[in-house]
């Protein structure tokens, strides 16, 4: 069951183990690319992370709230423009995000052309099914919103290192303990991804020929089991390590952000954009 995601599943023709290991690596690669792009001196990167977070959330809010196709697709253009100004290749956005959205949401929206009742504007040659104006508009809304919102979400992470994003989330009122957990989760995601990758790569290197379906299932489940055991023991070890360094449940964070005049200006512009989109919607 494919789902809409920034991380494409590749190696479709490869063997089962190779595909598993490849998919896990693709996630790691995506994160590395994101970290590289976040360090570039682009427009978005220049703003304070809190402003960036607020701006992107406002733009996603505007995309979801807009009741006009022109506004939704205008916001999609804005996303492409922001990417260009932030030295994030639009090609990367197109390949990584738009393609995935079109393959998932695009296909999901297709039946709406015929299923949404309304005024018929055309008929499908051969089958004679009526394509309704309402169906066309609703499919355009769904695809446009999904494209624009996914682009903004991608811009946020492609322009912001994870630790900065977490600090920005703190200003939204998230409890500090949650921020600490999110930071550590992100760290352990990569450790466990590497672990899982090594597990499947090791098995692949000892494998000659194809595995049957039942064997593949057993392999995935026992791989998951080994990973779960390791995770739980890792959690114990990390806890002991934290305790031995004096952890008593309090959390402090490093590096304070400071807002500049440019940040305030960007904040005002984004707030204006959100207000305009909402005014157009209602």
């Amino acid at each position, binding site marked *: *069951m494919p*789902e809409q*995601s*920034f991380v494409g*599943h590749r190696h479709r023709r490869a063997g*089962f183990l190779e595909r*598993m290991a490849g*998919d*896990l690596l693709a*996630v790691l690669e995506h994160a590395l690319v994101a970290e590289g792009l976040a360090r570039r001196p682009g427009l978005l990167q220049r703003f304070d992370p809190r402003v960036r977070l607020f701006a992107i959330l406002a733009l996603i809010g505007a*995309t*979801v709230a807009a*009741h006009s196709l022109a506004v939704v697709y205008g916001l999609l253009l804005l996303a492409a423009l922001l990417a260009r100004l932030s030295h994030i290749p639009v090609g990367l956005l197109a390949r990584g*995000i738009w393609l995935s959205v079109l393959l*998932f949401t695009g296909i999901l*929206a297709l039946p*709406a052309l015929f299923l*949404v009742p309304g005024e018929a504007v055309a008929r499908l040659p051969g089958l004679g099914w009526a394509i309704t*104006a309402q*169906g066309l508009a*609703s*499919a355009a*809304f769904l695809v446009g*919103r*999904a494209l*624009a*919102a*996914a682009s903004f*979400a991608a811009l946020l992470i492609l322009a912001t290192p994870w630790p900065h994003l977490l600090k920005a989330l703190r200003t939204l009122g998230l*409890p500090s*303990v949650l921020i600490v*957990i999110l930071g*550590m*989760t*992100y760290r*352990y*995601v990569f450790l*466990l*991804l590497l672990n*899982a990758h090594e597990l499947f790569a090791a098995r692949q290197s000892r494998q000659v020929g194809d595995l049957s*379906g039942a064997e*593949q*299932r057993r392999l*995935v*489940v*026992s*791989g*998951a*089991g080994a*990973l*779960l*055991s390791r*995770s*739980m023991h*890792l*959690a114990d070890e*990390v*806890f002991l390590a934290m305790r031995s360094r004096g952890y*008593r*449940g309090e959390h402090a964070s490093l590096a304070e952000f400071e807002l500049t005049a440019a940040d305030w200006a960007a904040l005002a512009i984004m707030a204006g954009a959100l207000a305009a989109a909402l005014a157009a919607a209602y």
Partner: protein
Amino acid sequence: MHIPDGYLSPATCVAAYVVTLPFWYLALKKVDRQLNSRMVPLLAVFSAFSFVIMMFNLPLPGGTTGHAVGLGIAAVVLGPWAGMLAISIALLIQAVFFGDGGISTLAANCLNMGVVGVGVAYAVYRLAAGRAPLDAPRRVFAAGLAGYLGLNAAALLTAVEFGVQPLWFHDADGTPLYAPYPLAIAVPAMMIGHLGIAGIAEAVVSAGLLSYLQRSDPGLLRLSAPAAAAAGPVAVPEPVLAATGWSGARRLWAILALLMVFTPLGLVATGVAWGEWGSEDFGDPAMRQEIALASADQAPPAEAPRGLASLATLWRSPIPDYEVPFLPSGAGYVLSAMLGTGLVILLWLVAAWLVGRARGQPVRS
């Protein structure tokens, strides 16, 4: 299952945040109290594990593949509250970093998979496993069933969220502004895929992991099997977790929450329930035909029974036929269900308080 941005209206997204926030808050408080400083590393590592497990594509019979959400095993190993948090954290990282699921729809995804999925999985596991020993095959079956039903409960809730969009959020000429398919399409479309593919993946992973843990690390199963842990043959290793219980009261909460979730399905069914006719229905030819059809072709009396007619005016419900006049059709139905359920919960709390007072015991909240 991961709802992307743009599928749900802002009102639905806000409602999902409003419903989910108290669960997050309560879960964070409970888990913090029970695990204390151990909570941070445990939740971090388990969330990371949930994230990675969602990447595992499981080949299924018939040539398809499905991926598990890991909600079954989260419920078994961590219990409902920590499990809910771990799945939510994994979903947040997925949404922000990898675009699996939207940001505006994050709370809806957490509600479906984290709160309802994990809650149902935990309740099913506890009920199905009973007091079986930790190494019993029955527990493997229970975990598979828990994963299957938990995931399908989450899928059903997702389908209902999709299905109400065209009903409530369309423009003047009837164009659906968000997910375009009504309940009659969204529910079967989602459920066929999840009952047939994704649910099986979740069941296989949950049951397989439980069987793996029985052999390699049975201590991790202790939390969701308090009775078995006391009597079971397995020596309890260094405690990994503090217990997070699920009292009888909470089970009721879960059942009520499920009822609330299932109520909008009434929108799919048409007609009036048998025996729930109003006195005016006996005068309406279309309704008369419906009553006759539902009553093995017995023609209804020409007029409403006198007793029914005289009692009909005795009590005027504040929300007749579950319709709220200022809301579109269907909205009132759901709202009425919420209101009714809320009233039942309140009544039940009052009753529990009275019983507690009569017995002279403090009531646990």
